[in-house]
């Protein structure tokens, strides 16, 4: 009786686990599956396996009629991807630099109103996107700044600096300041100490912050929607525009490609992180005297 109960409980737990992952991944798997469905009218009804949707995106020859696709999408799509990458790379570079330097300053120096500055740096993260978007839009209009790639970059930096600041600060909090003192004690000036001790030790935080900034910048819709100009549409804004003209199967292929890109970025991030961790490889020593 008791063993049966345990058995049933174990089954229930397994079932729950499976349901949980289905909850997380079913929509994504569905989109990937639909991207290979050749039915142009109703994607919920399976016809045949096809790569035509992908061919259409890349402007390759395909057997689909114009009415089945979003009109002249390929060039616009590529332009949106280009804008997104430009914005994300510039934003990542800038917010990582400024966010890291800010984190160092706040962690290493004591100054008046420090707690208040820290609070100010947290604020953009909890500010509702819609508020930030509208505020930025009004600001750009009031100062007479034309909306375009530049305004998107500035807009993204305003809140991504905070993200980098927080990630790097967490890393710095775990860094023993005596390591920097030891470096100075051994004759290294402040710059050498930063380059050879501080930076390598906070590198995982800096890389993590940069990855986060890149992904959020690539992905942001709400804020970007307000501050992008007509000729500078990012990918999320572009996709949102497509959806408003009706859902066509082509969107599934675009989404699948985005998933692939995200996985690639995550993989690079993990690779860099592991590389950092194994910077001092645990090489077995052959002439190894016994530990004392």
């Amino acid at each position, binding site marked *: 009786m008791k063993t049966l109960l345990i058995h049933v409980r174990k089954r229930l737990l397994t079932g729950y686990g499976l349901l949980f992952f289905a909850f997380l991944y079913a929509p994504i798997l569905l989109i990937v599956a639909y991207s290979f469905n050749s039915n142009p009218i109703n994607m919920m009804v399976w016809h045949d396996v096809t790569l035509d949707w992908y061919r259409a995106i890349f402007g390759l020859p395909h057997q689909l009629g114009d009415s089945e696709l979003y009109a002249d999408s390929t060039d616009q799509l590529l332009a949106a991807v280009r804008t997104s990458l430009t914005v994300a790379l510039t934003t990542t570079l800038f917010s990582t630099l400024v966010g890291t330097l800010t984190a160092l300053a706040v962690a290493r120096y004591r100054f008046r109103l420090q707690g208040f500055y820290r609070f100010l740096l947290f604020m953009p993260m909890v500010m509702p996107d819609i508020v930030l978007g509208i505020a930025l839009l009004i600001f750009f209009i009031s100062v007479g700044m034309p909306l375009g790639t530049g305004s998107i970059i500035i807009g993204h930096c305003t809140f991504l600096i905070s993200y980098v600041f927080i990630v790097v600060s967490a890393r710095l909090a775990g860094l*023993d300041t*005596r*390591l920097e*003192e*030891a*470096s*100075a*004690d*051994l*004759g*290294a*000036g*402040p710059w*050498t*100490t930063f380059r*050879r*001790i501080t930076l*390598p*030790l906070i590198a995982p935080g800096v890389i993590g912050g940069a990855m986060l900034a890149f992904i959020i910048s690539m992905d942001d819709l709400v804020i970007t929607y307000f501050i992008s100009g007509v000729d500078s549409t990012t990918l999320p804004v572009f996709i949102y525009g497509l959806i408003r003209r009706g859902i066509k199967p082509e969107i599934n292929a675009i989404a699948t490609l985005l998933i692939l890109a995200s996985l690639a970025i995550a993989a690079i991030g993990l690779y860099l992180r592991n590389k950092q961790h194994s*910077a*001092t*490889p*645990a*090489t077995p*020593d052959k*002439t*190894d*005297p016994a*530990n*004392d």
Partner: protein
Amino acid sequence: MKATTPEAPVVEIRRAIKQFRTPEGQRVPALAGIDLSVGAKEFVTLLGPSGCGKTTLLRTISGFEALDEGSIQIQGQEMNRVPPHARPVNTVFQNYALFPHLSVGENVGYGLSVRGVPKRERLQRVGEALEMVGMNGLQQRSPSQLSGGQQQRVALARAIINRPALLLLDEPLSALDRHLRQTMQRELKSLQNELGIAFVFVTHDQEEALTMSDRIVVLNGGHIQQQGKPTEIYDRPVNAFVAEFIGESNRFRGTLEPGDGGLGRLCLAGDEPLVLRRPAQSVAGELQVMLRPEQFCVHPPSGDRYASLKGRLTAKAFVGRDLEVILETRGGQPIKAALRGHDGQTLAGRELGDEVALWYAIDAPHVIAA
């Protein structure tokens, strides 16, 4: 021969004053006017309870704390405005502070590398430094793969590779177990002889200080309480704090009356007077006298140069070599004694509550400031 003449001090600190501000805004003196000089090959220990200013003093020598007032000279050079990386001293940090992202070899060679010593020479000197601490061959290891004692040795090798004029050690042995600590004490001492440089060693462990030092500097409340050879500090503490902090002591407070034949009688409240040889300098009024627990015996070798104190036996405990007993005098003064051999055996046979006499040489009581 120059070696026999007193050499110029490596470090000369004059009237060093340093205050810290608490979060509540109060000013706490960490150094309240310290004068200290360290000889060229001297092993000096800064000893005191936590918060006494010993670590602050060490950090003003290494340059991590700036003095509010006073001056620090190292090898005759004014150091007040010289940053840590430009000072000819190196430090062994309390928790070793080994760079976790560098190998043992890279850690030890770091000081040479930042000074631009070519790789060939660097590798050779890293080998030599590791050899001195018995760790050669482990260059490729990561610090996290080492035991506490091994990390300690790597930290030592890293600190001596720049051939500093002075090595500062900030409680370097406090994280090691007792057995390893004693081994490291001996090794540190012989390393210092081998290198022929001055060591300034910070500790709160009086046993460590007594074992290793040429000179002990006892600090409390930002002041130097006493400095001198370990035996001086132990046998002739200048005040109650030093007597209490180093070793165990029984202290008797009373007024001194002259007696016969150069003897004096310290009149205690509620007890018979304590007989002692009158101190050379004339002291008047109330004073304190110290007797160490091991200065007592039960069977004095001769009667005339010994005097006794009587009390009831209130506690006894065998702690290995000694029998530790506590008496209480009629006046309520507790007396702690450590008895050995025949003395110990005698008292071990007595019951708690018995009246016993403890003898001491009349030369033994040491007068300290009241």
